[in-house]
């Protein structure tokens, strides 16, 4: 305890004397981002009688745009799962869910969130209770079970947007099925909100969603520059906005300013790392409770994680989008996200990133919590070796449950991997 206190005091003292070199590399938009997200959660936590807005819990891959049209506040338990992980509350909450009878092998986002709903704990004192649950299974089958649990607990309507998995194809039958469900989704929203769906406003929200996605892609693409003005660890942080506020002017404005900052950094030659020897791609959900540690670890080797498969997931299906018929192309856009496709398509996606961002290696997070993301990674590793011949690293961990992380083992593997890059 005492040692911790002392360390803290030293840290504060060090922070007071700011290192100008370090200051220069810091992304200045971070502050604005924190303020926007705080305001977003503040509104969500304000009693409904005051805001007059309903709350929907929605999965990270779910169509949020119709919610914005209806003035419903979208809340993302997965985003919250990340907050739980980052604030190192994962283990405690996961243990609580295990006492409730949930197996420790289940998804740690789900475990933490299920436990959190029952105890008024967790970061920001828990999430505001939902008026409806919107579950899109384009990311996994786990969300279906998780949202069923929450539907029983909160006793509110559960809408499932069932997006058939596209192992090798997206066929017209699938399109018809998902399109029919988009209509059912809108009908349900009209019923819950007690007002008709505003199709003109949908066009506007759709336009903003597309704009936001384009900006986000542009931001991610700035790392094609050497040195990269940011890393995937920064993308993990700035991602929250495209997930939660996609389809709003707030997200568009914010990303415009963030993009400008990145462009300025490029113009001034400011990279996130003092020296960028190696460029890498990250695969899978971040290890939230070890972000800083991992970031420092790679930085110490002058290895810069310039891109990742995770944050690009929120702008990867723009090619299926018809800007003039946003609602009509929603079905295809949401069904064909990379996690809802075959392992070989996911491998192609990474290989394209390797080429686009000119990277020297790929880091895989084999995530116990996420089977659709992780099973198949061994095949992807082999395909990368065959097709582009660069080294890969497999880190065994879990996104929120720290009990599945062995620091010494991961450290050894990273060191060995860097040796291979030399």
């Amino acid at each position, binding site marked *: 305890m005492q040692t911790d206190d002392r360390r803290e005091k030293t840290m504060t003292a060090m922070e007071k004397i700011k290192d100008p070199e370090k200051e220069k590399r810091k992304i200045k938009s971070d502050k604005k981002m924190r303020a926007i997200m705080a305001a977003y959660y503040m509104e969500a936590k304000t009693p409904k009688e005051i805001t007059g807005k309903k709350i929907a819990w929605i999965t990270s891959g779910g169509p949020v745009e119709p919610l914005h049209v209806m003035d419903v506040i979208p809340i993302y338990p997965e985003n919250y799962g990340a907050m739980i992980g980052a604030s190192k509350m994962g283990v405690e909450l996961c243990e609580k869910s295990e006492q409730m009878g*949930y197996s420790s092998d289940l998804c740690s986002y789900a475990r933490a969130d299920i436990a959190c709903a029952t105890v008024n704990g967790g970061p920001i004192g828990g999430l505001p209770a939902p008026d409806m649950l919107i579950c899109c299974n384009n990311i996994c089958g786990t969300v279906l079970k998780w949202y*069923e649990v929450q539907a*029983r607990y909160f006793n509110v309507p559960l809408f499932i947007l*069932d997006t058939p998995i596209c192992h090798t194809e997206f066929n017209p039958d699938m399109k*018809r099925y998902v399109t029919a469900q988009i209509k059912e989704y809108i009908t349900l929203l009209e019923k819950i909100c007690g007002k008709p769906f505003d199709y003109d406003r949908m066009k506007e929200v759709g336009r903003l969603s597309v704009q936001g996605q384009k900006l986000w892609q542009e931001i991610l693409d700035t790392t094609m520059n050497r040195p990269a003005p940011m890393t995937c660890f920064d993308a993990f942080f700035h991602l929250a906005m495209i997930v939660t506020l996609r389809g709003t002017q707030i997200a568009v404005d914010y990303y415009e300013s963030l993009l400008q900052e990145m462009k300025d950094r490029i113009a001034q030659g400011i990279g996130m790392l003092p020296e960028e020897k190696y460029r890498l791609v990250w695969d899978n959900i971040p290890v939230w409770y070890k972000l800083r540690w991992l970031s420092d670890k790679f930085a110490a080797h002058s290895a810069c994680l310039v891109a990742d498969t995770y944050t690009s997931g929120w702008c990867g299906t723009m090619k299926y989008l018809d800007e003039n018929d946003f609602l009509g192309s929603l079905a295809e856009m949401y069904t064909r996200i990379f996690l809802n496709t*075959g392992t*070989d398509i996911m491998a192609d996606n990474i290989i394209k990133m390797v080429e686009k961002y000119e990277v020297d290696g790929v880091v895989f997070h084999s995530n116990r919590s996420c*089977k659709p993301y992780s099973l198949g990674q061994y*095949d992807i590793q082999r395909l990368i070796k065959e097709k582009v011949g660069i080294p890969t690293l497999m880190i065994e961990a879990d996104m929120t449950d720290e009990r599945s992380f062995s620091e010494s083992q991961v450290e050894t593997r990273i060191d060995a991997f860097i040796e291979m890059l030399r």
Partner: protein
Amino acid sequence: MKHIDMFKKIASNPAEYAQGWKKQTHGRVVGHFCSYTPEELITAADALPFRILGSGTTISKAGEFLQAYSCSLVRGALEDALTGRLDFLDGTVFPHTCDSIQRLSDIWRMNTNYGFHADLIMPVKLDTESAEQYMLTVIHKFRKDLEAGLGTKITDAMLEKAVRTSNQVRNLLAALYEIRKASPGKIKSSDLHTIIKASMVMDRGLLADLLGEVVTALEEQRDDTASKPKRLVLSGGLCSMPDIYDIIESSGGAVVWDDFCTGARYFEGRIDETGDLEKNIARRYMSRIVCPAKHSGIFSRGGHLVEKVKENNADGVIFIFLKFCDPHAFDYPYMKEMLQKEGIPSILFEIEEQTSSGGQLRTRCEAFMEML
């Protein structure tokens, strides 16, 4: 029991049976993973539907393709495929159920070479009209995929015959369950399990004949067991461990019903034999009690389990899941709670196919029986 030795032989080595069947009939064998596979379409194509369960061998090759946190079914089946134990297959069918099977389909497609590969992307929610419409297109597409994969034509007459046979098999298996429920002494659960396991890989025409004989013989037989075992309902995914039944029976229990896909879910729900058969097949898979990877209301499985316990005058429930089976593990707490509210005791056994922890299971099982 009549024919039991033959059923045992098939259940203990399904691959050997399929190879023999192939030699004899020159027919094709279609492997599949799940009780959502419309077997009648495979039978209609004159092929043998073969439910893949994994032979339970030690994992050596599958570890290079699948992480250790995938279930023993997925790892075991891939191990069999990679080591050539399934080289009699002319095609494999993957109905979309859980995340692990979803990825197994990809890994299988990319790394094995057993004839055709069919993904059967059924709806996940089974309680809406649009889902039923979609299910119908999936059944129709599957028929076309099978025709293309096997180079054959499935006529309506062939399908009608296959539906009749599969209904017959389902009726007879249901009859066996009814016999066991009325007089658990007449048929050992391990034997019934053996029959079901063999049923999922056998020539369905022959199976219908043999099951008919078994049922008739059992109906005529008297139940002269005096003991009054504890009546149990089993709930979970597939169970391919015959040991479990012996353990339950020797600890003073008798299984009277189950909610397994390698059990009652395999035969529950008949297909209407008249009218549009594709539509009727779709309806069966829409209306049968769901596997936890599918959705039909938020209390359907718990309600069904309570109902089965009451209907069968059971004293308790044993949940049996494969370790790493997410859908079942998510449902367990609420189902246990629903049972609790009705005063029905339950216990959970988490198992792995390749590892036998018989001793520990026995101790827990005995303790549970005593509590009942």
